[in-house]
């Protein structure tokens, strides 16, 4: 492929990424941009060119050793979620902009520790970036068919220009805000997109190689069986390989927490804790999918080329070998994506550390105190931008001078070992409040020294002499126990595992030793308490900070203005006063304001610088450690008391709410009872009134015709019947309500029961000339109280008769078994039941509002009693909805399984 064509492709792709970042920066509130998917995808910045090309190389040369780099993060993930949730909380409260700042704050806003961590990470990550540049340069050469020529002058080296473009990208979108904890939406969005691109093109390649060039995994496997060393590639064949595996997993376990680019996307760019939930499953899944094809591509490379091609670049040489330049180009773009995201995010993270933890705290504080806000802001941004270019240029120089002859993986591993040196300070610092500055500082120094001796020094020696050296073979002064690859004769480990093992042991031990034997200052202990105890992380807590001395609001305000501008400074302070309910006219500043101001500046110039600047305008008294602990204990008790008070008041609220409800229910029940009694009284008095009036007429009137006399005597008789019916119903209903009604369950045949019911009501139907039609009737035998069921059927039938027109209407009764239930339906023509009435129709004394004409004969308890009876049979009774020109009632009772 022509170099110029490829350059056009590269520049266009980078242009596209610039455009994406530009769009994201100008649409900050876009829904997609702020979704948890973007967050989860951006975590995949973990997969760099090392993953993309190097894993295939590892799989082809050392077999399963390519896996730990993914297994580490996958194993770490459950723990990762817990640790990261805590870290994110702390980082937000203290406005932490990088892992260097994080550790600096934890160990007492220490300037020295922040600087040390920044240096360690530069040492660890710059070679890692150089590795990416190397990958770009070499893949560019492979694709254009040129020889890889590392001695070419930078002016003719594409990798150099790509590096510069990436620096411009990082500088533009990484340093727009002076506060480094502000979100970099443009960079994160383009990273997320790159994660998709690299995964997609890698999968395309995998499918192409596995299923197009070969006939699937089993085909590859069979062909590989002829290769003599295949066995070594698919097994861990001895103990040392097992150890190497274990330590490689541990290393990448730490890396997922500590790599600056991971800390950047996970912590600094996090919007809210919920985003972690998406990442929990998505990120491990992403890594898994990424690796499905890795061994197959590696095998395909071995089968195709034997030893004639660099295994690191099988991903390109396989499609090129088939003449498929287009696919090779896609793979190249995927690899470029991996490089770009890794380099940009790493550079952003490193430049923040260089400026906030190295340059500003050690070189610019005195200057800042004197200058105007605009100058300070311009200075801070310039420092960051220059740092960006410095990092990338250093990485390029490193690549030119060191990494030329080294495989992608070995430099990556070196980075991991170096970065792991922060593990004791980070993990123990989060969960052990005795861990102090001296422990962290000495631990890192010791760990780095050992790494330097066991890994970096031999690496340099080998790079420059090109061969093994007496120093490595025999040890210094010929002491074999001190051989850099085999301390105390542990040379059975691979060099990286060996370095990792020894440096970690020493680092952890030194950390614990110094933490236990030295007494840190009170500030360290203060932050230790703030970090370790979860209850202090529930919300931003300015009360947890212990500070005593003399300070004035005006001085602090003036200082804040120098960095934030007077407007922002005033606004932030006003917010602080309101939040803490402090009179804004207060002159003397207290511990809370000092803590607040330190945090406010920390995002822009780092925690240590911020503390130094603030302390230049306040007069702090020294406090003893025991005093700090006393105050912290007190504030802890206060918090606990406050919390228990809050809990009590919440409980009280709940109880009072319950009481109110209970009271309402009592009132309701009482009212129901009263209503019931009222209605009963009314229902009893109505027939009594008729009897009373009719009797009065019969007694008083002398000249009364025989027919009138008969009429009033009939009234008396009918109303008396009505009274006794009513009384029976009321007694029935009361017994059912109180659950005192005894049921007599016996085996009966429903057909006979229905006949009995119809017989008892025949007279009534005959009077209205209505025919009761019996529909399908199977012989169903089941257990029920026959008298009560007759009562129900009669009630339903007499209701039906009541509402059916004279002579014209019809009534039908139907009986079926449905799902081991007996269902009996009574249907009649006539007026429909109003939809509004349906839910209440079985309530006692419910009368439809639509019921006109004269009041139907009935107690108002009939259906309510039916409902009770059916419920005693474990059944249901209901009126059908949407019946046109008529009414339809059904009850169902379960037919019990006969005992076999």
């Amino acid at each position, binding site marked *: 492929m022509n170099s110029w064509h490829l350059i056009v492709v590269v520049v266009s792709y980078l242009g596209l990424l610039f455009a994406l970042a530009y769009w994201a920066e100008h649409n900050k509130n876009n829904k997609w941009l702020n979704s948890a998917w973007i967050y989860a995808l951006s975590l995949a910045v973990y997969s760099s060119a090392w993953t993309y090309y190097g894993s295939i190389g590892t799989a082809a040369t050392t077999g399963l050793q390519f896996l730990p780099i993914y297994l580490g993060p996958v194993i770490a993930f459950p723990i990762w979620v817990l640790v990261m949730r805590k870290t994110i909380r702390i980082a937000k409260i203290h406005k932490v902009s990088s892992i260097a700042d994080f550790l600096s704050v934890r160990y007492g806003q220490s300037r020295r520790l922040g600087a040390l961590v920044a240096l360690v990470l530069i040492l660890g990550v710059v070679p890692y970036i150089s590795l990416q540049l190397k990958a770009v340069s070499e893949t560019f050469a492979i694709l254009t068919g040129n020889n890889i020529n590392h001695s070419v002058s930078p002016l003719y080296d594409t990798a150099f220009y790509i590096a510069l473009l990436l620096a411009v990208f990082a500088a533009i979108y990484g340093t727009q805000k002076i506060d480094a904890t502000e979100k970099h939406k443009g960079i994160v969005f383009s990273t997320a997109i790159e994660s998709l691109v690299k995964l997609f093109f890698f999968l395309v390649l995998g499918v192409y190689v596995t299923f197009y060039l070969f006939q699937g995994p089993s085909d590859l496997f069979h062909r590989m069986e002829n290769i003599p060393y295949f066995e070594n590639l698919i097994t861990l064949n001895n103990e040392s390989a097992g150890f190497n595996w274990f330590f490689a997993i541990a290393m990448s376990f730490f890396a997922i927490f500590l790599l600056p680019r991971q800390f950047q996307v996970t912590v600094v760019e996090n919007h809210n804790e919920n985003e972690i939930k998406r990442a929990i499953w998505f990120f491990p899944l992403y890594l898994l999918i990424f690796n499905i094809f890795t061994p197959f591509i590696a095998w395909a490379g071995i089968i195709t080329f034997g030893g004639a091609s660099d295994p690191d670049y099988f991903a390109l040489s396989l499609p090129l070998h088939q003449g498929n330049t287009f696919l090779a180009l896609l793979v190249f773009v995927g690899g470029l994506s991996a490089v770009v995201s890794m380099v940009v995010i790493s550079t952003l993270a490193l430049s923040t550390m260089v400026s906030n933890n190295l340059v500003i705290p050690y070189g610019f504080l005195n200057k800042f105190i004197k200058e105007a806000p605009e100058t300070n802001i311009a200075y801070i941004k310039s420092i960051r931008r220059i740092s960006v270019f410095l990092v990338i240029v250093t990485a390029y120089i490193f690549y030119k001078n060191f990494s030329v002859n080294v495989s992608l993986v070995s430099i990556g591993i070196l980075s991991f070992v170096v970065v792991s040196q922060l593990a004791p300070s980070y993990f123990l610092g989060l969960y052990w409040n005795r861990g102090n500055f001296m422990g962290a500082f000495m631990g890192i120094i010791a760990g780095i020294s050992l790494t330097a001796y066991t890994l970096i020094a031999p690496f340099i020696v080998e790079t420059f002499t090109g061969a093994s050296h007496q120093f490595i073979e025999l040890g210094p002064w010929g002491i074999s126990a001190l051989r850099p690859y085999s301390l105390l004769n542990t040379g059975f480990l691979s060099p990286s595992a060996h370095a990792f093992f020894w440096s970690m042991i020493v680092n952890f031990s030194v950390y614990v030793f110094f933490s236990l034997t030295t007494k840190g200052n009170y500030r360290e202990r203060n932050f230790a308490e703030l970090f370790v105890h979860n209850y202090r992380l529930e919300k931003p807590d300015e009360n947890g900070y212990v500070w005593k001395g003399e300070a004035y609001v005006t001085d602090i305000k003036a200082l804040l203005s120098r960095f934030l501008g007077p407007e922002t400074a005033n606004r932030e302070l006003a917010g602080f006063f309101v939040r803490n309910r402090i009179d804004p006219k207060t002159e003397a500043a207290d511990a809370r304001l000092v803590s607040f101001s330190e945090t406010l500046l920390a995002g822009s110039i780092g925690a240590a610088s911020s503390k130094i600047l603030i302390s230049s305008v306040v007069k702090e008294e020294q406090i003893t450690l025991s005093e700090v602990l006393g105050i912290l204990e007190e504030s802890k008790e206060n918090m606990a008391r406050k919390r228990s008070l809050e809990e009590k008041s919440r409980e009280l609220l709940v109880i009072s709410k319950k009481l109110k409800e209970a009271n309402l229910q009592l009132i309701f029940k009482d009212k129901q009872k009263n209503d019931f009694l009222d209605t009963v009284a009314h229902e009893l008095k109505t027939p009594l009134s008729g009897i009373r009036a009719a009797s009065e007429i019969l007694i008083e009137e002398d000249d009364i015709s025989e027919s009138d006399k008969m009429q009033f005597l009939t*009234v008396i008789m009918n109303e008396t019947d009505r009274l006794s019916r009513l009384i029976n119903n009321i007694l029935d209903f009361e017994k059912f309500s109180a659950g005192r009604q005894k049921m007599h369950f016996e085996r009966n045949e429903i057909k006979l029961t229905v006949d009995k019911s119809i017989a008892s009501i025949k007279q009534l139907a005959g009077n209205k000339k209505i025919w009761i039609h019996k529909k399908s009737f199977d012989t169903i035998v089941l257990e029920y109280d026959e008298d009560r069921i007759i009562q129900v059927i009669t009630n339903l039938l007499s209701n039906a008769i009541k509402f059916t027109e004279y002579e014209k209407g019809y009534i039908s009764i139907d009986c079926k078994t449905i799902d081991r239930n007996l269902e009996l339906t009574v249907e009649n023509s006539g007026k429909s039941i109003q939809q509004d009435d349906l839910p209440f129709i079985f309530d006692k004394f419910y009368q439809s509002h639509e019921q006109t004409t004269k*009041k139907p004969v009935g107690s108002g308890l009939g259906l309510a009693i039916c409902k009770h009876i059916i419920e005693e049979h474990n059944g249901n009774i209901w009126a059908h909805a949407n019946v046109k020109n008529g009414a339809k009632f059904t009850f169902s009772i379960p037919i019990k399984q006969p005992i076999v």
Partner: protein
Amino acid sequence: MKPKILIVDDEPSIVMTLEFSLKKKNFEVYIARDGNEAMFVMENVHPDAVLLDIMMPNIDGYETLSFIKNNPAYKNTKIIIISAKDKPSDIEKGLALGADRYIIKPFALKKVITDINELLNL
């Protein structure tokens, strides 16, 4: 001219006995079974007195009472409530709405006749 009496009640036995007694005493009797019918009869007949039940379907006695009392055309119409509701609060409510008498069921026909005569100054 015979005084006109409107009976508003949904109980056939009560309507029947009241109607019989009043006719015997030479009143002209009209019957309504609920509030709706009562209003219809009122408009067409303009009775001198109304015997009004409270618990009726659709429009109850209280509503019917308010309707009558809010129409100036019926300001001379006498209202006697005849109801089974016998709580002091029920009676108060009825009288407050403008009823002239309140008779509790079961009632004496004699008492009804006396009250009508008194109210109509017969």
